[in-house]
């Protein structure tokens, strides 16, 4: 009898967990299906390479794609080196005391700050104080700040997976700390760092709130010519097309097309992360 109850509990537990997984997969599948079925029709070479025309009721989304690309590039230039440096310092050099634990906790908390707050902060710091104006630079820097906690955390986790024996082995051979990190720790942490970083960047690429006040434009006839230009961006364009346009129902397909391109972009970045990780892992001779 007892055995039977145990068996029933086992089956129930297993099926409950499986149900949770299925619900999640279903939700994702529905979202993908919805966006794909409504957005795929409008995707064409022209849609990807031409600017919007006729009051944004026709034409393509090329400036938005380009804008998102530039802003994400600025984000990467800022967040990747700074985040990696910070993570290396925290994980390899800083002593494990109250102060570093507090710093770590603060960084974790920063990744929970709503993105609109970063947007406001970006206006104050970059647009006004640094006189970058509403521009690609301001928006990229704001997104960079927002991505930093993610980059730092991901990099630190990646560094933690490198066995202590690699560090000790190098130090015991008379390597300096930096030599051991550069030649015997970083090469094995890089795949993990890159994956985490690219995930962070792909999240940044899809953000609307932080670029809202810092440089994204409703509509621009020309593509940006410097990092101090305003720009159009995919997520913001999507927001405009679905809520701010004068004829929302007419431009609905464009909105869905934009969403599809954005998702494809994010997917592509994640794919790149997977490929990089796979290739580095193979080269790293079976580590991790």
């Amino acid at each position, binding site marked *: 009898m007892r055995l039977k109850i145990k068996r029933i509990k086992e089956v129930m537990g297993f099926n409950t967990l499986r149900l949770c997984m299925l619900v999640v997969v279903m939700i994702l599948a529905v979202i993908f299906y919805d966006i794909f079925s409504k957005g795929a029709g409008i995707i064409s070479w022209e849609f990807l390479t031409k600017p919007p025309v006729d009051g944004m009721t026709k034409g393509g989304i090329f400036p938005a794609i380009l804008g998102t690309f530039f802003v994400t590039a600025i984000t990467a230039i800022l967040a990747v080196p700074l985040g990696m440096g910070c993570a290396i310092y925290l994980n390899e050099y800083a002593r494990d005391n109250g102060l570093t634990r507090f710093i770590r906790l603060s960084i974790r908390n920063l990744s929970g700050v709503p993105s609109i707050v970063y947007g406001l902060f970006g206006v104050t710091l970059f647009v006004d104080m640094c006189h970058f104006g509403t521009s690609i630079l301001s928006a990229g820097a704001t997104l960079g700040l927002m991505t930093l906690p993610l980059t730092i955390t991901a990099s630190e986790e990646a560094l933690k997976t490198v066995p202590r024996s690699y560090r000790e*082995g*190098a130090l*015991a*051979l*008379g390597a*300096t700390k930096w030599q*051991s990190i550069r030649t015997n720790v970083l090469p094995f942490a890089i795949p993990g760092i890159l994956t985490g970083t690219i995930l962070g960047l792909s999240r940044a690429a899809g953000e609307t709130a932080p670029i809202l006040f810092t440089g994204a434009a409703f509509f621009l006839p020309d593509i940006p010519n410097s990092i101090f230009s305003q720009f159009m961006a995919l997520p913001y364009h999507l927001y405009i097309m679905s809520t701010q346009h004068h004829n929302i129902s007419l431009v609905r397909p464009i909105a869905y097309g934009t969403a599809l391109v954005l998702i494809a972009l994010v997917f592509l970045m994640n794919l790149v992360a997977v490929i990089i990780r796979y290739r580095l892992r193979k080269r*790293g001779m079976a*580590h991790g």
Partner: protein
Amino acid sequence: MDKKIRMKAKDVDFYYGPVQVLKRIDLDIFENNVTAIIGPSGCGKSTFIRLLNRMHELVSNARLEGSITLDGKDIMAPEVDPVEIRRKVGMVFQKPNPFPKSIYENIAYGLEVNGVRDRDFIEQKVVESLKKSALWEEVKTRLHESALRLSGGQQQRLCIARCLAIEPEVVLFDEPCASLDPISTHKVEALILELKKDYTIVIVTHNMQQAARVSDHTGFFYMGELVEFDKTEVIFTRPRDKRTEDYITGRFG
């Protein structure tokens, strides 16, 4: 015949945070001798050996009192660079820890971080170290394969070769055979006996037979204290302390 003292621990007290793990250690390490450190788990023997090349500094709340000298010079002195000490005092770890690089690169690594750029010299050193560590015959045809593909015993001998390549004066072995099978253990022990002609060796081991087989001097650590230190034959045949006798006769540990 009195041998020359290479390293000397004097009045060493060592703490991790508030916990004292070593108490008043006085120990001499003689040139071209094998000094074995034995004792039950947690007695402080591994902690002690890591002081000898300042590896203890990797733990942030470690604190040391007393002095450890190499050829009469205090290795803990503030002006002494730990990198310099670790070049002179090499270490082989408990678990073989080859880097996930090729066999060749593993040995070249120590030379490269110490500023050697001459490829011919590195090549010559790689061969020489592999021969010294009795690994050459087994790996000479696959120097550029991953070191991780070697067996555990071969990996440990590679780690020894890697250590020898930078020409240390003292070599520390921290339970080098703990994860090896009997045949590999025998090879490493034979190697240690061979190496003592050119190097001064300290070996931590929980295996008393091993200490008896390879060492000239033995120190018995118990609960952070050096209970007894003498010639190995004395420790194993006429120990003065009751605790040493109990340990070597297998009554505890």
